């Protein structure tokens, strides 16, 4: 490896998104927007109790309503074979159990808002109305949705906890300077702007096409195959454009199965679009988590002990875990670290990964605690982090594949004027406002998985690259075109990247900041192989200008194979194909992660700096400026990379200041399940954000040298705000979101 081809002067500075035109003209097609003949509409009826059983379900009025084709529930639903997998022939083999809620499977209610029926009608309005006519009676059982009331139920996950000790447990307590504090991250809801939606079309009894919102067309295909016991070739998942997801479309949810069942029942295509209220209950959320951090340090600021424990929650019917405490194991050089992670099962739907996942939760606690410690030690927060800089991975005892975190601290601090501030809390004022500066670190694993891509060079001089991935917004198509352009030596406008269908070569699920690394590697390798084939064909062509040359002596540039020794001697790709009478040149390859991941610890890093104002009497917080510096390896697509960092910070602003899903525990029901009461940031909340990149390649992860970025953009950000609020006011807020009532109380 080590072919850092973007070091060349040809790096595409600020390439526009390849799908920009489709997005600004409204022609980009999202899941619910595919024209399908004979379309019908499904609307979910959801439980209004939190736990118990359905005693009776009166669907008569709904069935009689104009335009209604069917009302489907546990009473009359077609069977889902995957819900009750047959016992394997081999006794030692375990049957493949269904993950998650089995929709319309029984009369049992696990959470408020659980789908209990779906109404299908010929128009959306009729389905919506008929859904209100379905009447359910329940046998209620006492429910538990209150995290704090159930904290004693916390137990290690069945699938294994995150119990870890390095050196001595709880060593922080013995240190000369100590800090212990508790931090809360509340329910947060992904709330992508596109509502989750699916159109289910049974092409035959055993053959289905779905137009679906998913971050992984292949994953969804697998789920459908499992659910309906279908072969791969009989299941097609189409997901051309995904209107954001941030984790909510990482798995197959009950409404997707419900739509497929409904379509089976009425024998017509069914479109099912969730309401915004369903987005709170049916497609996951960031779990409520309480964390305790203990830090011990010497007087000169060397960490001697970190203890990081977390209690989070899952649903009553499924276990969900995430790596909240993981960051404390390796982010700082510290001889003694111990962690633990426990779960409380509650009568709520299962949580799922939300941008930054557990690391965002964990970094809020750890990076707030570091800030608190810095004041105890009277050491600048940046300086404290540098004094505990981990030069190698203290958890795995391995070298980093690359780590430019120091550079991030430096770049960010300079840009925001960090060292010009008065360090003392509540010491700075501007226009009658208290001024605060805060900083924090973010970290997330840099991954590479397996992926297959196919490249087809056509006789007209264009290249098509394909893989079964979806793009929820980061700009995967744009990045892949950039990578292909570099590797294949062809201008961007001659390259098309095709994605969004499970029938394409299997690509990765978009998540864990691994798409560019994983898929980019496949695209790179396919393109390099195609150029190798072109070189060979150029040498063997009847009119080859490369007499006696060897492949090593050839290069590619701008659609031509050329002689390195004399770059004027060249042969165009199109001509090469013509000479060989080939209509096209095609190559497909699965690219696998190398052994390097075992030899090196691989992470992306971010450092966030925030300047904010706090109104001294009303407590209103206004973020004035953000600088975020990222070590995401080599930047493959400058424009979309910058946007992704800005976007992550915006999500972080929401996490820090406004976002909290609230359940009224008397009813087990969300009381702010809409976008007026669940506050995501609006334009006026977001100031100028500067995104800086170290932009140096990781030599080991992949041929591009690119690390991931989607998660680090958000991870840690909320702590920079909490730290800035402390600097502005002298008040430490440890439970998110930092609303003004917490400032003035």
């Amino acid at each position: 490896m080590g072919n850092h081809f973007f070091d060349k002067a040809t790096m595409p500075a600020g390439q526009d998104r390849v799908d920009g035109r489709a997005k600004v003209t409204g022609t980009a097609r999202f899941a619910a927007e595919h024209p399908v003949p004979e379309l019908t509409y499904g609307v979910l009826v959801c439980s209004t109790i939190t736990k118990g059983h359905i005693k009776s379900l009166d669907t008569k009025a709904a069935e009689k309503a104009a335009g209604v084709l069917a009302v489907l529930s546990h009473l009359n639903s077609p069977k889902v074979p995957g819900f009750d997998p047959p016992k394997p022939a081999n006794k030692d083999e375990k049957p493949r159990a269904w993950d998650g809620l089995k929709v319309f499977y029984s009369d049992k209610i696990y959470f408020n808002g659980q789908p209990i029926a779906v109404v299908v009608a010929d128009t959306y309005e009729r389905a919506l109305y008929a859904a209100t006519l379905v009447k359910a009676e329940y046998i209620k059982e006492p429910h538990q949705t209150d995290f704090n009331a159930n904290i004693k139920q916390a137990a290690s996950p069945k699938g294994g906890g995150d119990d870890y000790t390095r050196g001595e447990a709880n060593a922080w307590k013995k240190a000369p300077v100590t800090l212990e504090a508790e931090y809360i991250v509340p329910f947060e809801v992904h709330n992508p702007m596109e509502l989750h939606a699916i159109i289910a079309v049974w092409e035959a009894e055993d053959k289905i096409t779905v137009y679906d919102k998913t971050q992984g067309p292949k994953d969804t295909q697998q789920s459908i195959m499992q659910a309906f016991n279908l072969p791969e070739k009989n299941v097609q998942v189409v997901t051309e454009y995904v209107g954001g997801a941030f984790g909510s479309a990482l798995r197959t949810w009950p409404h997707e199965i419900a739509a497929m069942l409904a379509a089976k029942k009425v024998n017509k295509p069914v479109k099912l679009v969730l309401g915004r209220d369903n987005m709170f209950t049916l497609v996951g959320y960031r779990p409520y988590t309480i964390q305790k951090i203990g830090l011990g340090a010497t007087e000169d600021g060397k960490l001697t002990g970190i203890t990081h424990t977390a209690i989070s929650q899952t649903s009553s019917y499924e276990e969900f875990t995430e790596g909240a405490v993981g960051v404390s194991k390796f982010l700082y050089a510290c001889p003694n670290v111990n962690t633990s992670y426990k779960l409380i099962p509650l009568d709520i739907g299962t949580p799922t990964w939300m941008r930054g996942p557990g690391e965002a939760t964990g970094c809020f606690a750890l990076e707030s605690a570091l800030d608190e410690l810095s004041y105890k030690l009277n050491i600048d927060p940046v300086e404290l982090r540098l004094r505990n800089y981990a030069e190698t991975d203290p958890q795995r005892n391995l070298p980093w594949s690359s780590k430019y975190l120091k550079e991030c601290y430096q770049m960010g601090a300079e840009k925001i004027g960090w060292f010009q501030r008065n360090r003392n809390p509540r010491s700075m004022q501007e226009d009658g406002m208290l001024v605060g500066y805060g900083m924090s670190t973010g970290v997330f694993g840099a991954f590479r998985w397996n992926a297959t891509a196919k490249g087809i060079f056509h006789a007209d001089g264009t290249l098509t690259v394909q893989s079964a991935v979806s793009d929820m917004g980061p700009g995967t198509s744009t990045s892949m075109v950039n990578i292909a352009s570099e590797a294949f030596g062809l201008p961007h406008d001659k390259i098309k990247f095709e994605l969004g269908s499970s029938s394409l070569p299997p690509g990765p699920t978009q998540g864990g900041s691994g798409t560019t690394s994983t898929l980019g590697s496949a695209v790179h390798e396919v393109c390099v192989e195609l150029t190798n084939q072109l070189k060979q064909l150029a040498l063997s062509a009847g009119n080859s200008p490369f007499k006696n040359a060897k492949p090593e002596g050839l290069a590619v540039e701008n659609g031509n194979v050329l002689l390195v020794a004399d770059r004027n001697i060249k042969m165009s790709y199109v001509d090469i194909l013509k000479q060989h009478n080939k209509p096209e040149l095609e190559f497909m390859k699965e690219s696998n992660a190398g052994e390097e991941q075992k030899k090196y610890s691989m992470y992306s890093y971010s450092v966030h700096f925030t300047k904010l104002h706090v109104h001294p009497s009303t407590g209103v917080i206004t973020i004035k400026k953000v600088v975020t510096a990222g070590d995401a390896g080599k930047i493959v697509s400058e424009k979309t990379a910058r946007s992704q960092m800005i976007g992550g910070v915006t999500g972080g602003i929401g996490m820090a200041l406004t976002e909290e899903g609230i359940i009224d525990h008397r009813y087990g029901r969300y009381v702010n399940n809409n976008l007026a009461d669940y506050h995501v940031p609006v334009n006026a909340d977001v100031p100028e954000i500067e995104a800086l990149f170290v932009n140096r390649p990781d030599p080991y992860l992949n041929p591009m040298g690119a690390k991931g970025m989607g998660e680090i953009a958000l991870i840690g950000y909320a702590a920079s705000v909490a730290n800035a609020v402390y600097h502005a006011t002298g008040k430490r807020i440890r439970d998110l979101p930092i609303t003004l009532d917490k400032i003035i109380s």
Partner: protein
Amino acid sequence: MNTQKPRQASENGSDGFNASRRDFLKLSSAVAAASITPSVVTKAADKKVDERIADYFEKMTLNIEVNGTAQQLQVEPRVTLLDLLREQLHLTGTKKGCDHGQCGACTVHADGKRINSCLSLAIMNEGKKITTIEGLAKGEELHPVQQAFIKHDGFQCGYCTPGQIMSAVSCIREGHANSAGEIREFMSGNICRCGAYPNIVDAIMDVKKGGQDV
């Protein structure tokens, strides 16, 4: 499927016809309706005919111009402008993000003013000129705001983008694009969860400074 000429909206305040329609709809079967409309009901032997009767009584005529094309449509009064555009006219560029006026994804222009199409009943737009994202460009030539959104990367997933662009055009036309702060406030009715706000502001500032005709 509805071949009969539907009613016009009552222009004189008389609701005589509506009253009987109401009564009709309250009856659960076509047979029971025999006393009101015997000639129709005699044919109402199956559910399909029943449906047709329901359709007939539920729909009203709507004269509306969408992206420069005058249309006469039959719509139920409960159909929102957003659902009319997306489900009946297949203009899916206008997005549904919340369906309750809380996100701005459904922003269109009605008689030149930006509105949330999810909270407007289609029938209330009688005689209005609606412009959606599909009607903004002049053929292949993008509107300056569309171009600026591409240039400044004013989006990621692209779902809120049509609403943002329709809103941005209005923001400039209304004279509320004079500073970054003013743009932020007057663009706050359009939520972007990917967080492209700073780029959206840059795009609008760029168009405003360029002084192009929007």
